[in-house]
């Protein structure tokens, strides 16, 4: 299974295996990793699974769709590496993906 590396805002790192087809958000929630709230459950409707994708990985991800960019408008302190975890599907290509969580989600 692909490994995803989640880094909390305080630097604490969690490396977990996430089944393919799950989202980066689900990988965090199912492994009890703090820092991702996912209030709406993955409907791209709340922006509380906001993450900063590691610079080296950002361009390797499938591009954002319009609704994701719209939701990022209301995320907490978005920057150019911001994505919503619920919109990134885990695959073999993303083995080793590094994402960082913001200091809070809202």
């Amino acid at each position, binding site marked *: 299974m692909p490994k995803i590396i989640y880094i909390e805002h305080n630097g604490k790192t969690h490396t977990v295996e996430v089944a393919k087809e799950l989202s980066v958000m689900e990988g965090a929630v199912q492994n009890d990793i703090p820092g991702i709230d996912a*209030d709406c459950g993955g*409907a791209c409707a709340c922006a*509380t699974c906001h993450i900063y994708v590691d610079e080296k990985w950002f361009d390797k991800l499938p591009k954002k769709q319009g609704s994701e960019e*719209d939701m990022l408008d*209301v995320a907490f302190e978005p920057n150019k590496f911001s994505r919503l975890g619920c919109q990134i599907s885990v695959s073999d290509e993303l083995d080793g993906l590094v994402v960082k969580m913001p200091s809070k989600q809202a």
Partner: protein
Amino acid sequence: MIKTDVLVIGAGPVGLFAVQQLGLIGLKAELVDNLDKIGGQCIELYPDKPIYDIPALPECTGRSLTNNLLEQIKPFKPNFHLNERVQEISKENNNWKIVTSGKKIFLAPNIIIAAGVGSFEPRKFQVKEAEKFENNGVFYSIKDKTYFKNKKVCIFGGGDSALDWAIELSKFSEVTLVHRRDEFRGAGHSASVARELEKEGKLKIKTPFQIKSIEGDKKISGITIRTEDGKIEKIDADYVLGFFGLIMKLGPIAEWGLNIEKKTIPVNTENFQTNKEGIFAIGDICTYPGKLKLILSGFHEGALAARACFKLAKPNEKYRFEFTTTSKTLQERLGVKKSD
């Protein structure tokens, strides 16, 4: 003081269907919701997004589902108390006393919490000065637009609310619209109107900027905005408005002595009662082994919770299980009984 059989917290799909189940067995319900409209997440977050997994409805939207549920509960004439958040609950003899943010008081033997992920609240500015100035220069909604007349107003956000208020207030105030990226997500028409006003010098638009700080002692004197690359600008301002949509917060529910696990309320699956007698939790807010956060699960949970409410609301009556297809009593309650 309003007396009722069941107070339902949350007017989303699950709360609405619970009212139908309660009505069928002869129980009266009152609904409280912090939003200004009925439908919960379905109406606030995805009114026009499609839903494909409601039994016997191949496709619907958040809005059409809400409208259908309202139609279905019409015979039971439930009262809605919108813009009200339940603040406190306390035990009073055999009843729960419930007090809302608008100081409405309810007395009911049963409470059904169908509050989803909690109540919707405006997303706020993250800079620390925003809290100090909240309601004294910093606002997240507009009640009276004349309040801003001839003032310097900074509006943040990229959706319809931000665009519409920027356009409206620009008629009689000095407005600067600030947004984190160059594109606006609001309706295309509003965005082009705003750009037109900018050309005419009637509205200033600053993108891609975010707030950095708010200046002022007792009153706001100005704000500082920044780009991601560190470019900084200062703007004179009397008022700062943020339109960043709504966020869900568990809120006061956490203070009622209920067991809470990861922002959800554990229940038993026999009747969806919480650790307090007469308080039930259904829909996304409840948790139990195997819980699925689907609307259809919430419907089932409401049906069972309703039966449990009967015992406390009518302790001297016996509950009888009946089918709507054949029961005259149920058909009378539904208002569909044909005369023989």
